[in-house]
């Protein structure tokens, strides 16, 4: 730093006083400020009058609370420079937003709100922080090489090295609330029009509309980039309420970490379980000749030895079912006394044909169920069929042990991933 340039004194309150209307403590930091809107009662005060005369009442602050932890008067360090928040403007956007999918593209009508926080540094320079329900953006004024507003073809670029990009948002924004210090007269309803393009870094043109003539009063160009909630909180951590939020965010990040690893482990287990087919205990192909409308026993297995207690997968599949055939299969799992201890029932069908789109097929030919066997020993399977048709077909019965219930792992993955997702949002 040059010895000849003296840094301005540390941010010190120029004036401290109580609101003329509600009595709450207020601070006036910017010596250039002409107006002050009380964040407690919404009164607009004349900052240049000795008595801080009430000029009028603006919109009630209760209806326009900040979206997160920032508050008027908070001090913090952004990009290495110390700032104090001196005002907040809330804007209501009424605009068109670009969309595109496999069916096409277009613009949808949207309404959105955002806050513009104005931060003033010790050297009286400003920093603009934009906040909406989705997070924060840092906004910076730029001078384009190719200035433009909203071209008819809805393609924009500001700099020679940019490629023309589709306008992502365009429309208008109106000032609906203001609190803090202002060098200018506060005019609720003030209107700006805008057009923006770009992803990641968003470029925008904003033009202020003159209330009386409806002509353009002033044009400014900006670029914005997202900044995480965590970074903003860290910048303002000297404020106790923000510090508490940072601690809470740290806890969320811990939860996110645990949930993330759990989700990953569940996913790996799920994939392993999908691939693991188990150890075959019994397998049989059963040829069936079924007579229409007779609930007949199709098959009874010989005694099958279940070597251990635990989970067994029973799979019944059907092949060679004629076109249009439909049957309900009931399969009983019997103990050594041939008493039913479990039932599997399912519909099997096969239909195929040709229409204007070509050949179509609809079928249901496999059913499997996991059963828990409490003790090792001898078991039987008995199958009944019930169908309005006569047909011949082949059923396959397979029994495997040592199977993994992948559904649980999948559910575990889904739950853990959801927790991870929520915790990550809250922790950033």
């Amino acid at each position, binding site marked *: 730093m*040059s010895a000849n340039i003296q840094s*301005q004194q540390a941010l010190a309150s120029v004036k401290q006083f109580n609101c003329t209307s509600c009595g709450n403590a207020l601070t006036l930091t910017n010596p250039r400020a002409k107006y002050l809107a009380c964040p407690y009662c919404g009164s607009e005060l004349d900052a240049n009058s000795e008595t801080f005369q009430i000029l009028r009442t603006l919109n009630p602050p209760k209806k326009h609370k900040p979206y997160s932890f920032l508050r008027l008067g908070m001090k913090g360090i952004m990009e290495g420079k110390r700032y104090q928040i001196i005002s907040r403007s809330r804007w209501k956007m009424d605009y068109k937003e670009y969309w595109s999918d496999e069916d096409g593209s277009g613009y949808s009508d949207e309404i959105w709100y955002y806050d513009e926080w104005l931060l003033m540094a010790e050297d009286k320079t400003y920093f603009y922080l934009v906040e909406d329900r989705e997070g924060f953006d840092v906004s910076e*004024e730029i001078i384009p090489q190719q200035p433009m507003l909203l071209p008819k073809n809805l393609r924009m670029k500001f700099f020679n090295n940019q490629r023309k990009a589709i306008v992502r948002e365009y429309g208008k924004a109106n000032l609906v609330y203001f609190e803090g210090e202002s060098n200018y007269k506060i005019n609720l309803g003030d209107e700006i029009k805008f057009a923006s393009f770009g992803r990641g870094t968003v470029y925008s043109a904003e033009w202020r509309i003159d209330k009386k003539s409806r002509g353009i009063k002033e*044009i*400014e160009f900006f670029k914005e980039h997202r900044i995480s909630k965590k970074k903003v909180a860290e910048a303002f951590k000297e404020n106790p309420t923000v510090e508490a939020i940072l601690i809470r965010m740290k806890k969320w990040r811990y939860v996110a970490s645990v949930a993330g690893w759990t989700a990953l482990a569940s996913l790996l287990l799920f994939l392993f379980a999908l691939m693991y087919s188990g150890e075959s205990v019994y397998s049989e192909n059963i040829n069936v000749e079924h007579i229409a409308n007779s609930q007949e026993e199709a098959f009874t297995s010989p005694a099958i030895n279940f070597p251990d207690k635990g989970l067994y997968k029973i799979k019944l599949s059907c092949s060679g079912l004629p076109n249009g055939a439909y049957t309900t299969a009931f399969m009983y799992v019997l103990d050594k006394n041939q008493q039913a201890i479990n039932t599997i029932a399912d519909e099997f069908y096969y239909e195929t044909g040709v229409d204007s789109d070509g050949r179509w097929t609809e079928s249901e030919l496999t059913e499997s169920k996991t059963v828990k066997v409490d003790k090792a020993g001898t078991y039987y399977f008995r199958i009944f069929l019930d169908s309005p048709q006569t047909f011949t077909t082949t059923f396959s019965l397979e029994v495997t042990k040592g199977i993994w219930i992948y559904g649980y792992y999948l559910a575990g993955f889904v739950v853990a991933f959801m927790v991870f997702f929520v915790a990550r949002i809250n922790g950033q």
Partner: protein
Amino acid sequence: MFHRTFECPSCGSQVDQKRPGSRTLVCSYCGQTSHLNADTLQSAGDKRLLIDYGSTLKIGMQSKWKGKAFLVLGKLRIDYEDGFWDEWYIQFLEDGSEAWIQEDDGSFTLFKEKMKVSQKLNLKSINVGEWQDVGLGTSEKVFITSKSKAQVNGGEGELPFRIIPGEPADFVEGILKGLVVSIEILPDEQILYVGQPFKIEEFYAV
């Protein structure tokens, strides 16, 4: 280095002139604006001491911008319907060239390149949001970003043209090839400068 002193025609205090071409000197004690005619000072308009709202720049200060040393000679304050801004008149010490630093609500623009305007501009014929011929004498047009009726609030130190506190000073701003164009329409002359914004930290760079 050039340095002349005068007596303020109003209060008799010493008034300094540090650049030969200066045409307005403002007394730092009583705020009297005076015009330089040959070797005499003549009062012009009301006495007006500008309110100090706090700035990194000060009259008489020396510093460096992108490694080039400069001296702050004067300040011009312009009022308009939304507030005011300051124009700091500076001289680079190495080559003696002049420039302006515009300070507007914490943002700074250095105007170094002065251009001649071949035609008298009329604020009514300037349309914000359009590319317009502002009389640069070439085919180049300026994209107009704002215009406003304004007036001279007052000055400090020394200035290269005559000002009278309270006189009209309409202004037009625009963009030309990625640079900021500022046109001040004073009663006696039109001044068009081309410049670029910079961050205050650049003052400190050596």
